[in-house]
């Protein structure tokens, strides 16, 4: 049963891009593609041949593989209620964060391997933003560690309690931060807009400009997986521990569905940040998580304030 979180995340990851697309279509009054369209696309890509740039080397070919593998292994850490993840040890979230970084590192060098100015720009932006968002994640995890006195994902989420008004506030801020970190990590709306298919403006999508076939298929799958990763974390974050397994499964999917809808909603209703504003915006996430940390210090009575 330890793999339950992993399995459910995989399932929800397959539907994620579809739900986002449907939400966006509905928001803008269009009919839009079906929920499964993205899956069909992936299946089609799997069967397709590839075109490689003559400039590229093995790095370009192995990058998507490592990227995909890193996310899948990261998903193995996903606990589910009282069930541990397939992999779980103390301070596993450090491993988790660095594993995501491995994938990112490879995608960045993979993009640079094509020797294209566009992909260089995308890679550069990705590198910058993911480095800036890292502190926010770690401070948030630090707050949770402090709150629960445990250091692995499983224990963190099992021992988390929300009882007072104050802790609800922390929970809300935590969820907000998780969502925003996910948006940055996935290069989504306020940071990047995957919809404007323009070489000059994008971050993640422009990095994969030269990928095709199997590699592209992996990249598409990874996008969904990454969302499911954060969706799963948020779901675990708010599970009431007393609920039954089935109720939790329902909650898990509801949270993922809501997360996808929120992403779609954000992408419809706001314009992209000015690029120069992004670093500040991401840094503000760290500040917010610092406030969360301070309040956790207050909750655990380390910060004595009358």
């Amino acid at each position, binding site marked *: 049963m330890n793999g339950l979180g992993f399995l459910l995340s995989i399932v929800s990851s397959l539907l994620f891009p579809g739900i986002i697309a449907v939400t966006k279509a509905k928001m803008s009054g269009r009919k839009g593609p079906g929920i499964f369209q993205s899956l069909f696309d992936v299946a089609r890509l799997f069967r397709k041949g590839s075109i490689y740039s003559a400039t590229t080397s093995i790095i370009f070919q192995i990058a998507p593989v490592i990227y995909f593998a890193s996310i899948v292994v990261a998903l193995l850490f996903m606990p589910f209620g009282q069930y541990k993840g397939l992999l779980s040890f103390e301070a596993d979230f450090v491993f988790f964060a660095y594993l995501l970084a491995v994938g990112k590192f490879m995608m960045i060098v993979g993009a640079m391997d094509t020797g294209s100015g566009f992909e260089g720009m995308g890679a550069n932006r990705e590198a910058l933003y993911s480095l800036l968002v890292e502190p926010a994640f770690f401070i948030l995890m630090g707050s949770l560690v402090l709150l629960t006195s445990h250091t692995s994902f499983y224990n963190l989420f099992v021992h988390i309690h929300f009882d007072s008004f104050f802790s609800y506030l922390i929970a809300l801020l935590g969820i907000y931060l998780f969502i925003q970190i996910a948006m940055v990590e996935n290069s989504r709306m306020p940071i990047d807009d995957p919809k404007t298919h*323009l070489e000059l403006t994008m971050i993640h999508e422009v990095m994969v400009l030269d990928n095709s076939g199997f590699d592209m298929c992996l990249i598409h799958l990874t996008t969904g997986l990454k969302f499911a990763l954060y969706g799963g974390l948020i779901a675990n974050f708010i599970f009431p521990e007393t609920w039954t397994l089935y109720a939790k499964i329902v909650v898990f999917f509801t949270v993922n569905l809501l997360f996808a809808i929120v992403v779609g909603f954000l992408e*419809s209703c*706001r314009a992209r*940040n000015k690029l*120069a*504003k992004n670093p500040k915006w991401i840094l503000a996430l760290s500040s917010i998580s610092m406030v969360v940390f301070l309040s956790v210090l207050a909750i655990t009575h380390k910060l004595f304030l009358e």
Partner: protein
Amino acid sequence: MPENEKYIEVGWNEFANYCDSLCKKRNVILRLMFATDERAIDNWFKVYAVFSEQGKDIFHIPFFKLRGANLKYKSITGCIPAAHWYEREIRDMFGLIPEGHPDPRRLVFHDSFPADSHPLRKDWKISENDLKEWGEGVVKKVPYDFMKVEGEGVYEIPVGPVHAGIIEPGHFRFSAVGETIYYLESRLFYTHKGIEKHFESMSFFDGIKLAERVSGTSTFSHSVAYCMAVERMAGINITEKVKAIRTLLLELERIYNHIGDIGNICAGTGLTVGNTMGAVIKERLMQLNERLTGSRYLRGVNMIGGVTKDIFLQADDISTTIDAVAKEYKKFMKLLLGTVSHVERLEDTGKLSKEVAILLGVTGITARASGINDDIRRAHPHLIYNNVFEFVHYTRQEGDAFARMMARAEEAKCSMVMIKAIIEGRYTGDLHVEAKEIPPYSHALGYTETPRGSVFYWVKSDRDGKPLRVKLRSPSYCNWPSVPFAVHGNIVPDFPLCNKSFNLSYSGCDM
């Protein structure tokens, strides 16, 4: 000969001085510059420059003649920078060389086009060999040197001619460091269709079909300008009713374009809802177009001497649709201005200073957003723009993408008011007057304001009343050279947004 065109012949070596003194003495704007091959008539090449005087409805049109082996003249670009593309185009098309032009590269022709081949000369023929080479692929006959920014760490981004979105072809060469653009050079003219040459092979009456197809978005404006030129040349006086109908349709065209453009700017900032809202309103207007004229793009309405349909029969439909659109439009603008992220994205993006705008002679929205109060509808009143009502001129000083969006928004609002006003009026006259024969060797200007800016046609008939030369200048032709200035110092990812805020046509500047 229309009374507001003042032709003055100048010696070929005096031309530059004359233009310079004209600029200094009077407040004039260069609207158009072109050459004609009149060797069949009097063995001369002629080069005309059309200046329009500010505040007076007068066109000063100095021209000079050239012939013989030495087809050179002194460039006027030095004193009037706005002439730089015209002169390069004349050199490409006619082989008349502007001496002292700061940019000796070719403008219209790409690398594979043979040197010393000037298509707008009457005796031009393309060789079999050249045709064969074009078919075979890339042949670099006259390489184009892009301007280089020297220095370590500068990289060039070649964008286009194939773009990620479904847009027209154009090549941009950015010299950038990191995200900052230090120089942008655009290489356009990928869509040369030989329109001007094609006009020469048709009768003036058939030419309207071609004029309607020059630009998809400003079909009607082009046909109005063309008809106007031919009618003025032939001395045809159109009736009040025709004037009213043309004005109304021009404004309809303006609204749907402006709202569509604003929607497209939303696509540039990534505001999905805004984008679709703009598209929905545009669609409503285009359906109105279809109901009125049978064409979503208002084609087939104009003819020489009048119009084919009496739009006023459907006045109720127009007024109810416009009311509905106005309501939706208000909501739309409220949404856009309320979305701070959208506004922030546009502000300070793609600033075009007034000084540069004046030097380059930009037109339309671009000019008005940079603080130049220039509108052909008021500068040279035509149709019923002068006598039916006063319309508010909306200029903004900032010159950034936001100013361009707001200029569009305000103009669309004005146009709605105008349409309502036009519908109120009563106009007399037939739908069209019988067009007579076109008098030989006559010429005239036609012009109007398209949604993008002013469009000019200059026509001249030959011995048989057939076109000897049809020169057309679309607004994009004036505005494209200003884009690099707006983009300079901006960041690379803001370029598409800048571009969308200008919303220029690639094909529309390539005749």
